[in-house]
């Protein structure tokens, strides 16, 4: 598979939120305002790319030579947790302004299942390092795309009149359902 089709497939066809149902928690949590959606999206792109590349290196240069492939899950989750912590410290030190705007989203990313999924999916799909990087950026880009589209819709929903029980998250899921229909049109693309 060439790099472009990997990119389009992960960005649109197999969109991480609409067809794989990953990263729902931050998706619901931070999609209420456009500015926080953009902040979270940028942070997720950065973390997914970094964590995937590092875990790819860890898998092929440490776990495979030692015959420890079954430790994949434990190693990856600890790696992601420490990577997020490291990124947080790095950003805090080098760019306090960026830290101020991204700060609260960074710790949340550890529990974003998309990060762990991408890291493991790259191994399952037997991608090489470049394909891993492209796939990671595409998945994270798809996440950010959905987050931004959703934030704009939810800002409008906020003021609309609806039954009390549907306010907030339930109506967001209805919007997601409609969006999933729209995105299913991309299915024949790759």
């Amino acid at each position: 598979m060439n790099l472009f089709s990997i990119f389009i497939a992960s960005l649109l066809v197999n969109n991480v939120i609409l067809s794989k149902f990953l990263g729902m928690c931050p998706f619901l949590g931070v999609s209420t305002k456009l500015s926080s959606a953009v902040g979270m999206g940028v942070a997720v792109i950065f973390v997914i790319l970094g964590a995937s590349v590092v875990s790819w290196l860890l898998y092929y240069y440490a776990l495979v030579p030692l015959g420890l492939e079954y430790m994949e899950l434990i190693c990856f989750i600890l790696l992601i947790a420490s990577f997020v912590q490291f990124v947080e410290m790095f950003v805090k030190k080098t760019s306090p302004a960026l830290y101020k705007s991204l700060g609260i989203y960074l710790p949340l990313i550890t529990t974003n299942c998309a990060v762990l999924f991408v890291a493991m999916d790259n191994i399952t799909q037997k991608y090489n390092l470049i394909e891993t990087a492209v796939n990671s950026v595409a998945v994270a880009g798809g996440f950010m795309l959905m987050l931004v589209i959703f934030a704009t819709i939810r800002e409008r929903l906020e003021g609309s009149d609806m039954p009390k029980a549907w306010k907030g998250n339930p109506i967001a899921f209805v919007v997601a359902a409609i969006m999933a229909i729209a995105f299913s049109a991309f299915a024949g693309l790759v």
Partner: protein
Amino acid sequence: MSEEKKKKSLIDELIYDNPVFGLYLGICSCLAVTTTITNALGMGVAVIAVLVLSNILVSLVAPLTPDEIHIPVYIAIIASLVTIVGMVMQAYTPSLYDALGAFIDLIVVNCIILGRAEAFASKNGIAASARDGLMMGLAYTLSVFAMAFIRQILGTGVLALKNPLTDTTLFSLRLLPVGFDIPIFTTPTGAFLVFAILAAAVTAYKNSKDAKAAAAEKARKAAEAKEKAAKAAAAKAAAAAKKAAAAQAEPAKEA
């Protein structure tokens, strides 16, 4: 009274405090594994196993863990348990393992499990933690089962349950006539839609319950105030009577 309270809290734990539809935790797997009730129940059992064991282990190691590193320690415990459960499932229920795919591994990042470890098991004893894990696991299983039940019937028209150990069909029931099934319910769209409806239903239930509780509280307070007023009036009356009696006694003494 305590029996009644216990019964009520059981329903409350499963529906009112439902982790999926009430608190929006563990949604990802709930949407993904609910195409058939077989997958949903399999996932539910896996989550119960991990949740009970992780709660027990966390409650054991919590007193020994320094505060700064407790999250990594809990994550390592949970990841090990998920690896074990995954291996067991791969060995004994291979078709179920294939159907659930990456979502077995992703139990690690299911917020319910880390959430319970952090909020409950780290502060409570073994027995209480195990019970809490079981209840939370059951509530999760109930949620995924409810979603799978609706999606499978509407999406395929057939309600079927497989035995994952032997891969034989336990029962298969056609509930909608052929051609009346709505295939969109097996797609992601259907998952989001069913989730939205169930979440709204749980919210409506919570709202009505909260309103009832508020009304009951108000009534109780009003009754209390009334009682207090009555008591005060009675006390006043008693004091007055006493005074009157004393006043009556005084002239008698004088005389």
